[in-house]
């Protein structure tokens, strides 16, 4: 009963914000709007489509005009009559809405508000944060700074006292976890306890903030927010290289990069004038979203999905705005409109992306690599200019060569002869037309699969082979080789022949040779009699002509009237991978090959032609060709090839990541009800949410610019007038140090979010943060230096009764460590933790078969070895669809969407992980080794040692009484059963020293397991 009434009171506090005394002014935005928005706005709010009774409560003029209330007279106000009515016809909200009735407390608030004049005020978070004067406090000695004044005043108002300062051990643990995510060592505690100067605490704070582990700790938080992961998310959820972005975040926090710049670089780093490598890496933010590679996915649908994803997440990240609602309709509670949504999306419409397929990675060479590439480029330029400059010497040499080539061509008629097809038929329904250059092009319908049958007629004798040239065309996908994505898969190539009047007989092909084959699609696939394998040439990635040659096993006798029938099959599972344009040639050369005379067909033609009749283009082509083979330039060419190979090798070895690349923006239009198939909506251009422009001026396009860019957007986001960005960030940092936000709604600063418990404090901090130049370390230091932060988290019965939710911040909070830190803590205590910062993500232990549901391709997690098994949790490979289960159990999110408020659950899976995951068993084993080696001679000393390492304190008497008998018991058991001790000590890849007693180590492992499983061990208090 007591619990229930207590909950009711609390419910009032939470849903309406605290109103302690009746005489206090009731605020519309703070007290009334949340009630109306929750229970009335669905039908009487901003959404025109849903509006009933033609009036809205969110606009005072309309509500007054419709006589919803009489200011100053609650009794006679319609709204009060309605919400208190017992008549089902009258009662609001009506039963059909399924909304619960207003509570007495809510009705009472509305009454008072009407009696006070029913004034509307602006929603708190849409007003610029200003520094309010510091409140007066009775106890002037308690405060360490401004924060404390804001905290102390309401505590005093409530007749309470702040909690006493926590002891040094607690403060050290709290600060270490909050600022570095790692536990302190016993030595650090000894140092801190020995330092009695007034600056001891500040020195500790400064030391922790300057450690590189600080950046890692902050990254754990920020990577959730921007949804960083190592895999693409949808369907096959394949790998992407994006660790450079993670390392950028770590380094940004460590360098204390101002938060406005940090924001701008992520949203638009690529658009900065002379963008640095670092800025381009930061712009990878726009590419962190989930993408698909699923076959059969419709590009238009996914383009719409990606646009919506960016709006939904960016709005939550910086504005705590729930704009996701506006994909389909105007927001039901907040002033965001559907037009705002698509205009917001238009800012990102310039980011190039593959709607369906693997996203392009960008090579980011290291500084050293960049230097070498620059040197190579300079050298290459010199060499190229030499090779491209025609000299009189070259002219002379060319003339000689030409004469020889002409003579040789005259003797040698075995070059490939292109043949004009007599007939070219498509089975799939496309139209095959022969062009002047004797190539065949497919037009008309573009079927998923297609087979061609081409008939050639020739008079030549002793034909020895056939050549297939695939040719690019401007009209094809990617201007490449097919009408699909530019690539093709030739699954079959067959030749038949008939001499005049004879039967058509199959011609056996002895081999197949191509100038290029895509890995896993070799040319041999074209003649292997299988329809599910084929030849492909990466035409979707690079538009270039290619050729393949098929020598006949036996020469075809040929002669006048000979017919050659060629069957080309495209039956792969890749739709529209049909060769778009091709040319067939025959030869009588003894050994047909790709380069029979060493000369390409177009050069042969020029050489054969009369020199005087050549046009300029032909002359230049020939000269260029000759320079490419001339002995005079051989050494230059050799050097060029060598340097290019070196450059390529450097590039191949360089790390890569996802970065934003701007191109002409996609057209954005409002999608009615969010339906991507519906093109009837109004076209929109980039714009910020309109209602905010009355507070923070809308950005203006730069000179000579037609449209607003992401950079304009990023600058607007971090404008000093923007009421949200600073508040939102400050509130979230406060959560990291106090356990909850000043407004509990970290993700929603709209009407439905919770009003801050200390609005003036939040505003003061936000204003101060911006004025400080968005200095993050300074802000954190302000918070942790406060007396409020330093309070004990132990709570008196009286305070608990008066303030069970800690609305007053009259005590610190106690909470479980985040998933990564649970891991880091155990590894640090065991001595296994690797301190390496950054680099590719790593794979610690993970149960075999956990990835069994992944496919395209199927995968098995292969854990790393050595130091990479013991890296901090934030480096664990983040597979979105199957996150490492050890992290998942402790509420690490999949990072498919922005997460600003991880839950802190307490589940049996967590117990199973800490008890049985080899990570934790091995950590216990390593801690056991340290205990035996470093803990001193006898059992009590060692127990003291282990306890101090894990909990930074000595064991209590009653704790020893539990652990000493356990140790003795397990020691006897392992002595009697050495095989079990061996098995236990074999867990994990780290080895135990051979000179230590195994039974002892196994028994100490049991003790260490108990310690690592304690609630206190994984709790920050």
């Amino acid at each position, binding site marked *: 009963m007591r*619990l229930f009434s207590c*909950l009711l009171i*609390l*419910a009032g506090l*939470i849903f309406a914000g605290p109103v302690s005394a009746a005489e206090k002014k009731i605020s519309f935005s703070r007290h009334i709007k949340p009630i109306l928005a929750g229970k009335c706005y669905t039908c009487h709010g901003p959404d025109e489509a849903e509006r009933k009774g033609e009036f809205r409560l969110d606009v005072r003029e309309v509500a007054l005009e419709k006589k919803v209330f009489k200011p100053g007279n609650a009794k006679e106000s319609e709204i009060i009559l309605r919400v208190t009515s017992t008549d089902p016809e009258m009662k609001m909200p009506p039963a059909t809405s*399924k909304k*619960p*009735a207003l509570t007495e407390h809510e009705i009472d608030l509305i009454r008072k508000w009407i009696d006070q004049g029913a004034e509307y005020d602006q929603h708190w978070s849409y007003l610029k944060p200003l520094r309010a004067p510091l409140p007066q406090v009775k106890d002037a000695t308690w405060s360490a700074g401004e924060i404390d004044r804001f905290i102390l005043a309401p505590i005093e108002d409530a007749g309470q006292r702040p909690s006493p300062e926590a002891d040094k051990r607690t403060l050290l643990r709290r600060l270490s976890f909050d600022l570095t995510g790692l536990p302190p060592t016993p030595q650090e505690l000894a140092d801190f306890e020995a330092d009695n100067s007034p600056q001891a605490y500040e020195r500790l704070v400064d030391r922790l903030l300057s450690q590189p582990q600080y950046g890692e700790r902050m990254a754990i938080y920020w990577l959730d927010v921007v949804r960083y992961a190592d895999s693409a998310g*949808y*369907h096959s*959820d394949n790998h992407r290289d994006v660790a450079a972005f993670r390392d950028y975040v770590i380094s940004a926090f460590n360098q204390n990069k101002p938060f406005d710049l940090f924001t701008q670089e992520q949203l638009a780093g690529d658009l900065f004038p002379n963008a640095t490598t670092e800025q381009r890496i930061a712009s990878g933010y726009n590419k962190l979203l989930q993408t*698909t590679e699923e*076959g*059969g996915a419709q590009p238009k649908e996914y383009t719409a999905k990606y646009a919506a994803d960016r709006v939904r997440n960016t709005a939550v990240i910086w504005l705590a705005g729930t704009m*996701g*609602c506006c994909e389909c309709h105007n927001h039901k*509670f907040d002033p965001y409109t559907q037009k705002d949504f698509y205009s917001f999306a238009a800012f990102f419409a310039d980011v190039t992306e593959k709607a369906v397929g693997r996203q392009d990675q960008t090579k980011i060479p290291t500084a050293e690599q960049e230097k070498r590439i620059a040197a190579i480029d300079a050298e290459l330029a010199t060499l190229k200019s030499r090779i491209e400059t025609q000299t009189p010497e070259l002219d002379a040499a060319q003339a000689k060569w030409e004469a020889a080539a002409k003579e040789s061509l005259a003797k040698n008629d075995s070059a490939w002869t292109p043949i004009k097809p007599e007939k070219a038929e498509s089975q799939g329904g496309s139209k095959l037309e022969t062009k002047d250059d004797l190539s065949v092009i497919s037009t008309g*319908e573009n079927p*998923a699969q297609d087979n061609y049958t081409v008939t050639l007629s020739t008079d030549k004798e002793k034909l020895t082979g056939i050549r297939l040239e695939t040719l690019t065309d401007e009209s094809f996908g990617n201007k490449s080789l097919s009408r699909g994505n530019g690539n093709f898969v030739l699954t079959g190539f067959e030749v038949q022949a008939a001499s005049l009047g004879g039967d058509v007989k199959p011609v056996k092909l002895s081999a197949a040779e191509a100038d290029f084959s895509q890995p896993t699609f070799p040319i041999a696939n074209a003649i292997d009699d299988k329809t599910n394998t084929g030849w492909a040439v990466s035409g979707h990635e690079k538009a270039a002509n290619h050729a393949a040659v098929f020598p006949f096993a036996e020469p075809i006798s040929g002669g006048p009237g000979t017919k050659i029938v060629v069957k080309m099959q495209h039956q792969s599972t890749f739709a529209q991978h049909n060769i778009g344009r091709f040319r067939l040639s025959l030869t009588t050369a003894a050994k047909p090959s790709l380069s029979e005379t060493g000369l390409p067909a177009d050069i042969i033609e020029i050489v054969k032609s009369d020199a005087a009749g050549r046009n300029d283009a032909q002359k230049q082509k020939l000269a260029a060709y000759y320079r490419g083979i001339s002995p005079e330039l051989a050494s230059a060419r050799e050097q060029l090839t060598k340097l290019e190979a070196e450059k390529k090798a450097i590039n191949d070895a360089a790390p890569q990541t996802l970065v934003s690349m701007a191109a002409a923006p996609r057209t954005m239009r409002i999608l009615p009800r969010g339906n991507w*198939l519906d093109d009837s909506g109004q076209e929109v251009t980039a714009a910020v949410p309109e209602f905010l422009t009355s507070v923070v001026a809308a950005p203006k396009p730069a000179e000579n610019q037609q449209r607003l860019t992401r950079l304009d957007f990023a600058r607007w986001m971090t404008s000093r007038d923007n009421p949200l960005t600073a508040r939102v960030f400050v509130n979230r940092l406060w959560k990291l140090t106090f*356990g909850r936000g000043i407004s509990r709604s970290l*993700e*929603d600063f709209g009407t*439905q979010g919770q009003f801050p418990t200390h609005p003036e404090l939040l505003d003061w901090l936000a204003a101060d943060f911006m004025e400080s130049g968005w200095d993050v370390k300074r802000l954190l230091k302000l918070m942790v230096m406060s007396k409020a932060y330093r309070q004990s988290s*132990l709570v008196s*019965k009286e305070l*608990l009764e008066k303030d069970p*939710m800690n609305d007053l911040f009259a005590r610190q*909070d*106690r909470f479980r460590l985040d998933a990564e830190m649970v891991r880091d803590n155990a590894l640090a205590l065991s001595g296994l933790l690797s301190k390496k910062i950054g680099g590719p993500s790593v794979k610690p232990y993970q*149960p075999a*078969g956990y990835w069994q*549901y*992944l496919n395209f391709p199927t995968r098995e997690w292969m854990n790393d070895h050595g130091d990479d098994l013991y890296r901090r949790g934030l480096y664990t490979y983040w597979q979105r669809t199957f*996150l490492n289960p050890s992290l*998942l159990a402790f509420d690490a999110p*999949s990072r*498919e*969407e922005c997460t600003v408020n991880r839950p802190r*659950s307490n*589940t*049996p*899976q967590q*117990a*199973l*992980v800490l*008890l*049985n995951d080899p990570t934790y068993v091995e950590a216990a084993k390593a801690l056991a080794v340290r205990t035996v080696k470093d803990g001193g001679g006898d059992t009590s000393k060692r127990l003291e040692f282990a306890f101090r390492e894990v909990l930074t304190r000595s064991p*209590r008497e009653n*704790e020893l009484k*539990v652990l000493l008998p*356990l140790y003795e018991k397990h020691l006897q*058991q392992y002595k009697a059963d050495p*095989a*079990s001790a061996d098995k*236990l000590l*074999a*867990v994990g890849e780290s080895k135990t020293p051979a000179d230590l007693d195994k039974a002892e180590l196994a028994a100490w492992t049991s003790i260490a397991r108990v310690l690592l499983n304690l*609630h206190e061990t994984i*709790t920050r208090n």
Partner: protein
Amino acid sequence: MSYSVIPTSTSTSFPRRAFLSRTASGIGATALAAMLSEAMSQRLLLGADAGAAAQSRGVVNPFHLAPKAKRVIILTMAGGPSHLETFDYKPKLAEMNGKPMPESFTKGQPIAQLQGAKLNCFGPQHPFKKFGQSGQHISEIFPKIGEVADDICIVNSLRTTAINHDPAHTYFNTGTTISGRPAFGSWLNYGLGAETDNLPGFVVLSSTGKFGQAQPIASRQWHSGFLPSRYQGVELRSKGDPVLYVNHPPGVSRDQQKDVVESAATLNRLENEAVDDPEIATRIAQYELAFKMQTSVPDLMDVSAEPQNVLDLYGTKGSDGTFAANCLLARRLAERGVRFIQLYHRDWDHHGSIKEHVAGTAKEVDQGCHALITDLKNRDMLKDTLILWHGEFGRTPMAQGNGRDHHIKGFSCWLCGGGINGGQTWGATDDLGYNAVEKIVEINDLHATMLQLLGIDHERLIYRYQGRDFRLTDVAGKVVKELLA
């Protein structure tokens, strides 16, 4: 002195109870916040319905409606089974075989791999037969399911919005294609609480066949989204630890493990005496539950005591990872009080050679489905077990080579057991099996209907997140009353 954390009785020691009992003497901020943000605050939001009597252990308390079913078993035929070769009888399509699909059907429609291809009708590849007293049309590839035709209610007018596997599963499981929303099983456990303290309330099993592409299934499909993590689905695996990390470390005996757990519990209690934090009591209770799972899970997986006739009914030898074995495990999970059991069979993506492949895949599941229904019926459990058989979408009436592409505008599923009016076929697609045209059932409607059978008004099972009240049925959903007995 040592406290025993292993209870001797089977009394309820569910964590929620553990900290509710603590709250009488003192409420810690964390626990209270957790409690308020969950059950209590939600209940306050919902308001209590006068008149409803039965109690549940979740936020729907009392039940909104008298429940007919206590638990759900979902048989997810992953990959998208063709409705045209399974439950939707289309003689007209057979007549049109090979002829162009009329453009009136396909113009402007979303399409997957057949984008840009010539669209020809492709007749059903297997004959249909009337089964049971009810004479329902079922494909001959399902002789065993045919035997229970009078128990199942076929829906031939289902529609979905997502045409690719991954988002289509997300839509079917969460009611929306946006990631981060809770799965049906999480919603149900949040709504009704657990009926067992020894096993998770939401269990997922999967099997793979030999005839279709094994499309990936993301763990998002059983994630609790913004609901508390304890409502997350737990995978039951046929290889390795049946539940992740459930086995002791090597070299540690059960007694030694118990020593470790008990010692930790004792130290936690001592700590709690010093700091009075209800989260500690919860932690102790969770270790208790974890330790119990170390027995209950192996016990669940050990089917050696099942009589031969039961094994024969399913056609399985034991926990071998086949669909049939998983059906048997589903029954055992149902018996043990697990609220929501979902079986994936990943073999239904038949883009080519559908004639042979759909028959092959059907054979992989036919006997298991039949056995599960029969076995539950024999144990008098079918009446309160709600079964749904479905794919994430259907397949095109148009040919893709000799297979079929994905199709979302009309497809089939069936329901059975707990409150379902079996022996009827509901709704219909047009003559060619393209569009659902009669008595259309959307996924949200299906969810609403199933929740109703579980005693829940789908519009009142809500959770506030990012300032909005979220539901499994998003902003839609109508109960299809005619499906209910």
